[in-house]
């Protein structure tokens, strides 16, 4: 139950009231206070969500009359190579958005915390910086970085490994290249989250370990890692969601190309709804995407909770 703030008593200024009337006024206050959030939440989250589920059962071009589709829009997702590929690319992005940043972030955070280097605040800021820049801006910048005459290819050229086609235009490299932008962005968030977790670990554990002759890797494995399990869980949850709902990055860098090698579900939702005029397919995609994100996070959290015990 929601705690009723003391202000509620202001209504009944004066002598003490009976318990029942107090309870009633408390209930009224609760309802009044809850009404607005429920209304807003319902109007902008619940209602659209229900509407999307409803739309997914219709063939509709967004303009004319709709015809009942049953589960056809859903089976189409499974049968259409293009849409199926989009989901596979989304799953591949989880590796780049979630797993890789954690693998990089763990040692990075550990080093930043343990090294006690001067200018720690500066490094922390630099690592976190990608998080505060809009993805659209980043995407435009990375398009230039990945260009044929861009900095990455120039550096590769010094080692005689210059690419003859731009990363984003290559059927082999486009998906990893888009994914790496995600890695770069996520690493900052992950590192800062892990650092806050690591900062809580008492120094005495490490001192005891040192006395026992445990090396740095052992300390990391036996002390740091178990201590930040909760933070890792948060990181995985956040970054997985980001990976699966990626839209702006793909829209701005490759439009799903070359061919269909970097399409993702969210891009397909946009394309089907606003360009191709199949609102039903778009809605079905959106529902599946939502369920997928929800399921993956549920599994991550259940597994995480269980490990804790």
């Amino acid at each position: 139950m929601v705690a009723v703030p003391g202000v509620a008593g202001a209504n009944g200024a004066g002598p003490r009231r009976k318990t029942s009337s107090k309870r009633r006024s408390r209930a009224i206050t609760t309802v009044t206070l809850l009404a607005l959030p429920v209304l807003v939440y319902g109007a902008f989250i619940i209602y659209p969500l229900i509407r999307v589920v409803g739309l997914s059962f219709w063939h509709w071009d967004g303009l004319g009359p709709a015809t009942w589709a049953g589960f056809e829009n859903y089976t189409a997702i499974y049968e259409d190579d293009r849409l199926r590929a989009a989901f596979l690319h989304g799953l591949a992005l989880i590796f780049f958005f979630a797993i890789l940043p954690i693998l990089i972030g763990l040692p990075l955070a550990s080093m930043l915390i343990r090294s006690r280097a001067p200018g720690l605040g500066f490094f922390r800021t630099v690592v976190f910086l990608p998080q505060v820049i809009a993805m659209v801006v980043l995407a435009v910048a990375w398009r230039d970085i990945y260009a044929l005459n861009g900095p990455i290819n120039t550096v590769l050229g010094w080692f005689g490994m210059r690419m003859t086609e731009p990363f984003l235009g290559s059927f082999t490299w486009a998906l990893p290249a888009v994914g790496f932008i995600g890695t770069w962005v996520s690493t900052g968030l992950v590192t800062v989250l892990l650092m806050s977790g690591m900062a809580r670990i008492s120094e005495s554990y490490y001192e005891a370990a040192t006395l026992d002759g445990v090396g740095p890797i052992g300390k990391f494995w036996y002390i740091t890692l178990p201590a930040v399990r909760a933070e890792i869980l948060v990181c995985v949850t956040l970054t997985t969601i980001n990976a699966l709902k990626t839209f702006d990055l793909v829209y701005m860098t490759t439009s799903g190309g070359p061919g269909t090698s970097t399409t993702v579900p969210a891009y397909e939702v946009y394309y089907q709804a606003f360009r191709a005029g199949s609102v039903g397919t778009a809605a079905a995609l959106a529902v599946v995407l939502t369920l997928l994100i929800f399921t993956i996070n549920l599994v991550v959290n259940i597994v995480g909770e269980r490990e804790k015990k």
Partner: protein
Amino acid sequence: MRTSAKFVGLGAAALLVLTACNPSAEDEETTDNGDAAEVSTDISDAPEQTLIVWDQEVRGGQNEQMERLNEAFMDKYPNITIERNSQSFDDLQTTLRLALTGSDAPDVVQANNSRSMMGQFVSSKQIQCLDDYSEAYGWEDRFGDILAYSSYSEDASVFGEGCVYGLPQVGETVGIYYSESKLAELGLEFPETWEDLEAQLPEIADAGEVPLVLGNIDKWPAIHVFGAIQGQYTPAEEIRTLGFGNEGASWETDENVAAAAQFQEWVSEGYFNDGVNGADYDQVWQDFANGEGVYLIAGSWLAADLNEAMGDDVRFMLPPSDGPTTTGGTGLPFAITSAAEDMNVAAAYIHFITSDEAMAVLAETGNVPVLNASDFAGDADQVVGDVMTAFDTLVSDGNIVPYLDWATPTMDQVMGDALQNLIAGNSTPEDFVATLEAAYTEAQN
């Protein structure tokens, strides 16, 4: 678990509401006020009213002509006030659907000719047939064949003939840009035939220059280049059927395979810049303006920008051949919605902004008028004048063929993907036409 219990409850509630929730299965109500019997070309006595116009003329000269014409219209008809809503092409594409079905729909809208826009508006009866007004104002005589670009059959199954649903202001064509001084340096002249052009390409490459430049990361630029090549191989009438997405043609012909093969060969021979599929469209034309590459196959819409960057050095020509065939078309036509308050006023507005006087204003502001373009070429900057002459030549002596991605609502993606695969050498010309054929025939069933 408490959370899951909540979600089960939520799901149940959702299902309950779901049964009562679906898109309007019945026909959208249209407030059709345009009584066909009362067609009138004189609106000076029309009651005082506001005309809501949605356009996408947001860039410099485009915006200027629109402002000037709107002002002139309101001066001429003080009883009409124009409320203009201008958005970029992309924004208009995405918002127009919602706007048309809303209660506050505009009277006049600029809608893309393609099946994915105008075609769907026609089939769902969101815009109105203008044949009566076409007769009253004599549009057919003035515009001629170009009206096919905004004509559909009533159920939108046929594109390119039937009822006229909109009028364009400007013309567009794909052609070849080049720098005069650069060709002179190489000891070359702009080729007179397609064979000459083909022969020049290896020569240019041997001289250490890039013969052709293209930036295709956004997928659509290659469609226009392919269109110019296809015009050399496939009969115009066939391209027209394929582009309009009408029945009666096939992608799987020797001519189309030959066109695809030539495109692929040009890439594999190294006649294009490296990494076509990953190169940025805007970056590439800017590089071209800075002296990279000899020929740029692109649309007339780049003329103003290239003129600014290269001045009198840049030229624009149609693909060299007798009776040239190339992709081209009109700017987005202005159409009247079913929600229009007064058809006569809306039609008078469309007539006004496409009149001969309006064409002069368009030319003055650096646009390519869809009518009598070559009359204005003399006063325009060199490359803009080239474009005006080219468009006029194409319409009168050549074959203007539609954008190939107009054929079906998803053709832009299908073709964009297929061309990127063709360019990368992932598919053969035969695979390429088979992919397009599948999309083309599927749309007809």
